[in-house]
């Protein structure tokens, strides 16, 4: 599996490179700005592109723009965006209409290597990964009185958050230490309470939940 890494800070770029090599990836190219990244992705058509958002020359969002371009051009390439900040807006742009093979995580998640590598594999296999902090922000947004979200139980909120992070029922069950059957029941109740139509797959589920939370 080939990976192209876009990151302008040398130390972190080298660190990421090591992590991916150890995970069995072939690091096809290292890019230090958005244009390099886009060129490398086009050339190598990797399984995965990992990129920072803020990169030279403007230090605004060229990494994100490159990621969006790659997602549009190379549907077979999964994209994982790493950033110092989690922005709701960027998540919405990344998910777009095709929430498969895409991830958006805070850079600091790299430190938990087991979790990070699991997330990387999930993205590579077409899954969706959203940072817990981002989901926390989405869930924590103030809502008018009587909003259906306020009627959810704590456990239902936990399930909803993990759904929004892109986790499968099995992963949610493992995380919450409950049976998968219980998870299915919780998910069904959440759907009912929020008035959401049951999603065809996990990606659609993420999109539906994120859209609901972004209202």
């Amino acid at each position, binding site marked *: 599996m080939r990976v192209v890494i876009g990151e302008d800070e040398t130390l972190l770029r080298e660190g990421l490179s090591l992590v991916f090599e150890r995970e069995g990836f072939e690091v096809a190219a290292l890019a230090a700005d958005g244009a390099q990244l886009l060129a490398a992705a086009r050339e190598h058509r990797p399984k995965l592109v990992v990129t920072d958002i803020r990169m030279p020359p403007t230090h605004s969002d060229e990494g994100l723009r490159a990621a969006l371009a790659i997602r549009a051009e190379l549907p077979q390439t999964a994209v994982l965006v790493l950033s110092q900040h989690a922005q709701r807006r960027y998540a919405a742009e990344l998910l777009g209409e095709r929430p498969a093979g895409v991830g958006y995580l805070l850079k*600091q998640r*790299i430190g938990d290597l087991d979790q990070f590598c699991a997330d990387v594999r999930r993205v590579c296999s077409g899954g969706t990964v959203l940072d817990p902090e981002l989901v926390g922000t989405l869930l924590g947004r103030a809502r008018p009185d009587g909003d259906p979200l306020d009627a959810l139980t704590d456990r239902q909120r936990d399930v909803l958050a993990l759904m929004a992070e892109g986790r499968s029922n099995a992963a949610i069950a493992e995380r919450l230490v409950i049976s998968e059957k219980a998870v299915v029941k919780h998910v069904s109740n959440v759907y009912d309470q929020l008035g959401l139509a049951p999603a065809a797959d996990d990606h659609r589920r993420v999109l539906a939940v994120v859209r609901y939370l972004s209202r």
Partner: protein
Amino acid sequence: MHFLPSVRTADRPRNGRDSRPEGDLGPLAARDGAAAQDAAVAPARRPRRLAARPQLPALAALGGAALLLAAAETALLFDQPGAIWALILFPAAALTWFAAGAVASLRRPGNRLGAIMLAGALVWFAAGLLNAPQPALASVGAIVAMLPLALGAHLLHAFPSGRLRGRASRLIVAGIYVAALLLHAPAWLFLPGGAGSPLQVADRPDLAQLGADVQDVVGGGLLLATAVLLADRMRGATRAQRRVLAPLALYGIAAVALVPAMSRLQGPLLGDDPIALFAIQASLLGLLPVAFVAAVLRGGFAPTAGVRELSAWIGADGSRPAPLRDALAEALGDPSVELALWAGERERWVDGDGRATELPDPRSGRGVVLVEAEGRTVGAIVYDATLIADAAPVREAAGVIALALDRDRLTAELIASRERLRESRARIAAAADDERRRIARDLHDGVQGRLVVLGLRAGELRRSADARGDDDARAGADALRRELEATLEALRELVRGVLPAALAERGLGAAAAELADRMPLPTTVDAGAERYPAPVESAGWFVISEALANVVKHAGASRAHVVVEATAEGVRIEVRDDGRGGATASGPAQAADGAHANRGAPPSGGSGLRGLADRVDVVGGRLTVDSPPGGGTRIVAEVPCGS
């Protein structure tokens, strides 16, 4: 008697008097009760309306007298030989001169041209007596017969101020009067004249002819000198002045030169018809003052009020630099008058807006009179020295306007220092913005990145501890990673407060959305993706974040809404809530803003709004607060992108 009393004459510092507050009549009240009364009745009326015409009654009386004189003279000449229509050209010319003089006097009370014309009218009446049947009257006419010519020349020299300017001019005019009166003497001393002139001492036509020749030569020479002098003045005049002066000088010189010359050329040109000749001469000279009056009016000289009215006007009105200048221009009859102010602090001359300026070179034809108040130079009047020959009225005006000008000077200094203050505040704000941006970027590129790498190292440590089965090391590595994550979280919070990533990366709309996401009450955002200059975005973000903080702290609102929209000038930011209202930004920044609508509510969160108003003011924007008690609060900041 004047209609507008000189309320402020007591303020003249040149007289060493103390200044008095405006409206204080001071000694005037005792000295001139009628004037004080007038002032009390109409303290704020403007000179343009009042344009005091103190001469009007006197002129009306004079006009009546002139009409009587004309009628009497016409009656005297009625049964004389010769065409009566020619003889009454004298009183007709006299009346024309009188009318011209009256108009000039009314239009420009401080100008002596009118007086010269009025004197000319008298001379014409006198000259008309030449044909009177009474020998004594006819003698008067004979003596002054040539004076109308001299007066015409006098007008030429005295235009436009009515005063003779320069030694040469005074000598020439004196010479012309001598030629017209003394050198004309042989004509009545040695010729019989009409009606048995009692002045005749001998019948010597040869001497009379000699006298006439001398008179013509001297007069011609003086007229030539006049032409040279006028041509010289024309060179120093502005184009606008030349347009007025040139036709006038040509007509004047032609009229004065042709009248005697035509007598000589009479035979060959006109045949022997003295009546026709005289009619032409009288018409040429008689209409001369009309041309002068036309020139005065064409020269843009509005009805002038005079220095006295100027002083009343200054006392009655809260004057500002331009009106003061205009009033001075009217009073002096010089539309080109300029005012310069002495900026003592900067040791240089400035105009009414505080911009640096220079006084003109005295040789440039511009005159300068310094204005002093309380012994200090506060300004200068720059006037047209070719128009105003005598600086005395300008000096008088300088005394009158001194305090008003000093006030203008202080205002100009204030405006300039306010502008400098605004610029320095903008620089300080920009420097603070730059610093915030630099700090946010350094944190992002430096510390945050290093901490992430350290977190990666901690993760690697954990893995190797795992591989070794070293539980203590694994727990330590986990704790270290969690510490690092907590540190990074705190750092993110710090960066959000310094300069949010969303603002730098996506602009105001994204930054507003991020702020709204973290609000404890439902907050919606209506914003486009437009980008604005960095100082505008920084100020806008400050406004949104402070206004939202105020909503949380003070408004007791159930929801808030943020609008960011592009306008023609820049950006308009609106933050509104449905809370208790009554917010006010007490302080000059708001008090000076007419749109501020605090409907008597007690202040709450005033200092926050005050800071907002200051921050918006620095970037040249405008903050308005609408916060009726119980009606929610709406804060609107309009920030221009220019400048």
